[in-house]
C-alpha cells in the first residue's frame, strides 16, 4: 500500500469497513435460524445489561443524587457506548488479549497494511453488533426526550463527540491492559474479560459523593468515570462550563496515547519472542 496521503488512507478505511460490513451481513444471514437466534439472544443480552440499573432507578426513583430521567440518561449513554464498542470493535478486537494470548496476532501481521488499520476495521460488525446498541440507543433517545431541555445542534454535536470519546476511553483501557498478553500470553489471555466486566458493571453508576481519592482513581487509572458519568454530568448541565465538555475527549487522547505506547512496546517484544501458542478458537469466527 503506497503511502498516498490522508485522503487515500480514508478511502481505504471506508473500503475496508464496507468489506467487513458485507462479511458481517453474510454471517448473520447465513440461515434464517442464525439470523433469529443471533438477534434475539443479543437483544436479550442488551436488555439484560441495562435492566438491572433500570430497575434500581425505578425502585429508588433515581440513582443517588440523580433523578430518574437523569439516571436513565446516564444508563442509556453507558449502554450506547457499549453498543458502539460492539459494532466497531467486535470480534475480539476490543478483547485484544484473547487474540494475543491465542497466538492469532500473526494473522494480522501477514496483511499488507499497518496493524492499526487492521484493528480499526476488522471488528466492524454493524449487523451482528447492532442488537446491543439498539436497546441502549433507544433508552438514550427516550431519556433525552424526557429531559425537557433544548436540543441545540451544538449540544447534539457534543453528545456525539462525548460518545466517541467515551468509546475510545473504554477501548484504550482494554488495550492498555490487553497489551500485557504480549509478555504473558497464557496468564493474560482473558484479562480483557475481567477489565470489560469491571467497566461494564460500574459504568452506569453515578460517582457523586465518592471519596476524592477513589474518584480520582476512577478518572485516571480505572477510567470508569469517563465512560458515562463525567460526560453525562456535562451534558446534563451538572458540571457547568464550556471546558468541562472537553474533559472526556482530552482524557481519550491521553489514554489513547498511553495505550498506543504500551501496545507498541508489546509489539516490539513480540517481534523478538513471537508466539509459541496457537489456537484458532474465536479467530475469524
Amino acid at each position, binding site marked *: 500500500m503506497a503511502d498516498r496521503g490522508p485522503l487515500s488512507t480514508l478511502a481505504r478505511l471506508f473500503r475496508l469497513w464496507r468489506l467487513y460490513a458485507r462479511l458481517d451481513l453474510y454471517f448473520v444471514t447465513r440461515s434464517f*435460524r*442464525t439470523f433469529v*437466534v*443471533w438477534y434475539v*439472544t*443479543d437483544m*436479550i*443480552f442488551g*436488555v*439484560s*445489561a441495562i*435492566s*438491572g440499573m433500570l*430497575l*434500581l432507578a*425505578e*425502585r*429508588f426513583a433515581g*440513582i*443517588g443524587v440523580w433523578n430518574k430521567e437523569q439516571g436513565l440518561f446516564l444508563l442509556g449513554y453507558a449502554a450506547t457506548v457499549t453498543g458502539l464498542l460492539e459494532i466497531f470493535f467486535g470480534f475480539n478486537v476490543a478483547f485484544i488479549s484473547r487474540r494475543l494470548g491465542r497466538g492469532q496476532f500473526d494473522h494480522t501481521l501477514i496483511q499488507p497494511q499497518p496493524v492499526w488499520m487492521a484493528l480499526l476495521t476488522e471488528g466492524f460488525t454493524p449487523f451482528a453488533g447492532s442488537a446491543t446498541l439498539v436497546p441502549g440507543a433507544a433508552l438514550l433517545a427516550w431519556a433525552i426526550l424526557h429531559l425537557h431541555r433544548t436540543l441545540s445542534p451544538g449540544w447534539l454535536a457534543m453528545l456525539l463527540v462525548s460518545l466517541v470519546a467515551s468509546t475510545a476511553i473504554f477501548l484504550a483501557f482494554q488495550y492498555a*491492559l490487553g497489551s*500485557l498478553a504480549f*509478555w*504473558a500470553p*497464557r*496468564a*493474560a489471555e*482473558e*484479562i480483557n474479560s*475481567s*477489565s470489560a*466486566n*469491571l467497566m461494564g*458493571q*460500574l459504568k452506569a*453508576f*453515578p*460517582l*457523586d*459523593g*465518592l*471519596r476524592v481519592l*477513589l474518584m480520582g482513581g*476512577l478518572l485516571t487509572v*480505572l477510567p*470508569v468515570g469517563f465512560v458515562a458519568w463525567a460526560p453525562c454530568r456535562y451534558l446534563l448541565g451538572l458540571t457547568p462550563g464550556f471546558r468541562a465538555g472537553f474533559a472526556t475527549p482530552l482524557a481519550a487522547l491521553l489514554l489513547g496515547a498511553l495505550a498506543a505506547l504500551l501496545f507498541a512496546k508489546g509489539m516490539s517484544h513480540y517481534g523478538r519472542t513471537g508466539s509459541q501458542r496457537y*489456537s*484458532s*478458537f*474465536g479467530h475469524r469466527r
Partner: protein
Amino acid sequence: MAAAGQIGESPLFLMDYLLRFLRVALLLSIWRLLFAGRGAVSGMTLPALLTYTLIAEAFAEPLLCRTEIVWAFWDGSIATRFLRPMGLFAQFAADAFGRWSVGFAVFSLPLLLCAPLLGVNPLPASLMAGLLFPVSLALSISVGLAMEFIFMALAVLFEGEIYAISRVRQALVVLLSGAFLPLALMPWGLGKIFDWLPFAAMASAPLRIYTGTGRPAWLLATQLGWTLLLWPLASWLWRISRERMVSYGG
C-alpha cells in the same frame, strides 16, 4: 491439574483477581451512596447489603458456576472428552472445582480477611446462617451445574449456536440470579417472582441465608426442588443431543 493450569506461567493471572477486588470495593462505595439516609429496603439494611455484595464476590465462581464446557464445544475438544474413563458431567465439574480452589485461595480468603478494612462485616447473620450456608452453597452449585449442562445441550440442539446460547445464559444469570443485584431491591414485586426461578437458587438463595434476609427453610426447599427437577432434565437433554455433540466437535 486444573488449578495448576489456572495459575499459568506468570503472576499476571492475579490481575484478574485484582480487578475483581477493585470492582467489589467500588460497588460497596456505590451502595453506600445509594443507601445513604435510607433505612431497610425490602428487609435489606445497608450492612446486610454490603455483606451480601462481599460474599457474592467471594463466592462468585461457584455461585455463577461456569465450567470449561463452552470452550470444549467451541474448539471441538468435547469429542476427546468422550474417550476418558469418566462421565462427562463429572469431568467438567472436577475441572471447575480445581479452578475454583485457586480463586478461593488467592482471592476469596484474602477478600474475606480484608472485609473489616472495607467496612464490611464478613460474618454470617447468625450461627444457624453460618451452618446452613454450606448446605445452600452445595445446592446452589448443583443447580448451577445442571443449568450449565442444560444450556449447552440446548446449544447443540440449536445446531451449534454456542456463542448465542452462552450469551443468553450470561444475561439471564446476571439479571435473575441476584449475584449482582439483590432480587429484594427490584421494583414492582419482581424480586418475589424471580425468587421462584432456578437462577435465584444459584445465587440469591445462599446469599440471603448468609445475610439472614430470607427464610432458610423455604430457600433450601426451592433449591432442593430445582435440583431434583433440573438434573433429570439435563441428563435427558444430553442423551438426545449426544451424537450431535461429537459431530459438531468434528
